[in-house]
């Protein structure tokens, strides 16, 4: 623990004694004021720094405005971050003994974590901004009628391409497998996404839950097209460098990548596939509360700060992602259009397929690893 952490812990311990004494008196009081005070006491009673397991860019490495309100209200319980590279990495860290108070998987993992015993539902009454969050996304964060995920950032997986170099035959995911652009295509390193997209192209009944035969067909398709791929990206900065240097013209990308490439002056189009049943795939980041956390109220306060319209606008303006707060609007009209922020069902049908639970995620992952190895 660093010096700040030790100091904060000492302060909060002494404070906790005062709080305990005051809480006895507070119990005698009645009315809403007393309830609010009691809630504050609960918050004050939680000690130490809030432990957050989150993605790079969302911590003290640039994401500070998103939780500035929390830090201001709880200067003695500043968040301390551990970074996750993906949900599988988070899962490994949790099972290896890491004990964060909250973390952020994406919507497709809500059911998995809700049934894993690792997380507990949120008390939404403690999140004042909850009422402003997109109801469609709120529902996506529920499992068994309980709110396991609080939606925050969101966006799409779609196809980004250089309009001066690439002439798509149709608005299709097929552009990622177009023989004409051999060596100029980048796929995204995701164990589920690529097989799902192949399933969308083949028109399978449920691309997220393909049969063994369908999965085999999807895998063989990807292996047969792999020679077209220059690289498989896993970080956005890599993708920007690939596009900026001209090494790649076509990629699976997120809205922010389109915004960043436009800022660089590159002629780029962010294409939402719409041929047949094809659509973009939407994702929503979901804060989840760990079971047995000693700081549940601080975690709620942290999520509340992230959920404000002010934080939402900052996220949209600076990161190019959508935010679940329906009052948040970006300064850029381009981004407003790309994210379709005026559409409350932007992440759902008929606009996009919202990413979802994959019952056989381990099988998908194994097959994808074999594609990369082939």
């Amino acid at each position, binding site marked *: 623990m660093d010096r700040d952490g030790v100091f904060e812990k000492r302060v909060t311990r002494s404070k906790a004694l005062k709080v305990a004494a005051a809480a006895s008196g507070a119990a005698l009081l009645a009315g809403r004021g007393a309830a609010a005070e009691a809630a504050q006491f609960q918050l004050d009673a939680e000690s130490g720094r809030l432990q957050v397991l989150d993605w790079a860019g969302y911590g003290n490495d640039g994401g500070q405005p998103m939780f500035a309100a929390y830090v201001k209200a709880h200067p003695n319980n500043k968040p301390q971050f551990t970074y996750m590279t993906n949900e599988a990495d988070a899962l*490994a860290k949790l099972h290896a003994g890491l004990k964060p108070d909250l973390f952020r998987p994406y919507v497709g993992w809500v059911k998995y974590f809700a049934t894993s015993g690792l997380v507990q539902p949120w008390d939404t009454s403690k999140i004042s901004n909850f009422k402003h969050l997109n109801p469609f996304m709120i529902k996506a964060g529920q499992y068994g009628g309980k709110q396991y995920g609080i939606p925050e950032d969101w966006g799409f997986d779609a196809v980004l391409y250089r309009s001066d170099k690439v002439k798509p035959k149709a608005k299709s995911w097929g552009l990622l497998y177009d023989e004409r652009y051999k060596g100029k295509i980048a796929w995204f390193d995701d164990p589920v996404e690529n097989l799902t997209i192949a399933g969308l192209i083949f028109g399978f009944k449920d691309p997220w839950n393909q049969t063994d035969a369908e999965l085999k067909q999807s895998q063989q398709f990807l292996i047969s097209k792999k020679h077209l791929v220059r690289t498989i990206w896993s970080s956005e900065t890599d993708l920007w460098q690939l596009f900026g240097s001209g090494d790649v013209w076509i990629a699976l990308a997120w809205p922010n990548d389109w915004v960043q490439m436009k800022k660089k002056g590159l002629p780029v189009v962010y294409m939402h596939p719409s041929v047949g049943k094809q659509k973009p795939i939407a994702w929503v980041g979901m804060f989840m509360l760990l079971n047995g956390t000693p700081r549940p109220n601080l975690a709620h306060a942290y999520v509340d700060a992230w959920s404000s319209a002010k934080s939402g606008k900052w996220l949209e303006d600076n990161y190019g992602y959508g935010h679940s707060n329906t009052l948040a609007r970006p300064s850029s009209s381009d981004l407003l259009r790309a994210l379709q922020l005026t559409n409350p069902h932007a992440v759902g049908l008929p606009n996009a397929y919202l990413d979802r639970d994959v019952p056989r995620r381990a099988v998908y992952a194994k097959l994808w690893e074999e594609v990369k190895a082939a």
Partner: protein
Amino acid sequence: MGGGEGRLTAGRRARPDLTTPGLLAPPLAWLAIFFLVPIGIVALYSVNVLDLLPEPHAFTWSAWHSFFSNSIYLTLFWKSVKMSLIVSALVVAVAYPLAYYLALSGTPRKYVLLLVLIAPFLTSYLLRVLAWKVILGDQGVVNTFLFWTGIRSAGHPISALLYSRFAVMLVLGYVWLPFVALPIFVSLESLDTRLLEAASDLGASRWQTFRRVTLPLSIPGVIAAFLFVFIPTVGEFITPSLVGGASGYMYGNQIVDLFGTGFPDWETGSVLSLFLLGVVAALTVVFSRFMRVR
């Protein structure tokens, strides 16, 4: 030996000498705790006795069985071995004349030149690898030069320079060259030069002296140098992940991905790791036979 010395020796014998065990204990303990025990744990993961996820699990060889029955992993391993062998052989071939010059030319500045050789290590490994992206990219130094000279037209860069097996092997060769030169240099520098003089006195030409005296005596250094490159590069994952692209993907990348990228599959990841360890250990044993000076 006098009587006094005899008593002294007997006294020494009576008291157990703890120097050797005392000196050996810390490194052996270190090896046991941070090498043997982790390997044991990995072995337990590979047979599902240990499992990351709290699911019912029991001893099984299934991951080993699917590894040997799935040609994809073995093909990838063979691809990595081939890449590593090519890099190791080429780098040794390039480093040998360099080390030969430094060790045997009699230049008074050999240690200065050696320092120059290892100077790139003063900069970060990542930075050196990333610099190759600037050099090899479609708009990089090499392609821009080719456009400028007219050898290639502007819209047709040589794309295979970057995000390819070639790029991985080039960068690995560049990175490991100084490591290879050092053991060969040490081996050549410790050569008894009187043997070279004797060969010359007996009428051997410079080429014959090199072939019959210098090269055989420097073989242990060459083998050591070869292993210095081969062992780490066969399991390499950073360089291919930076400049390898889809086609330069190596066995080490697969291990990393199985442990952390998709859905954690520590069982298969452990199998791949142990297989790599086993092959490298076997090769080291085989090569070490050639490292004995005859």
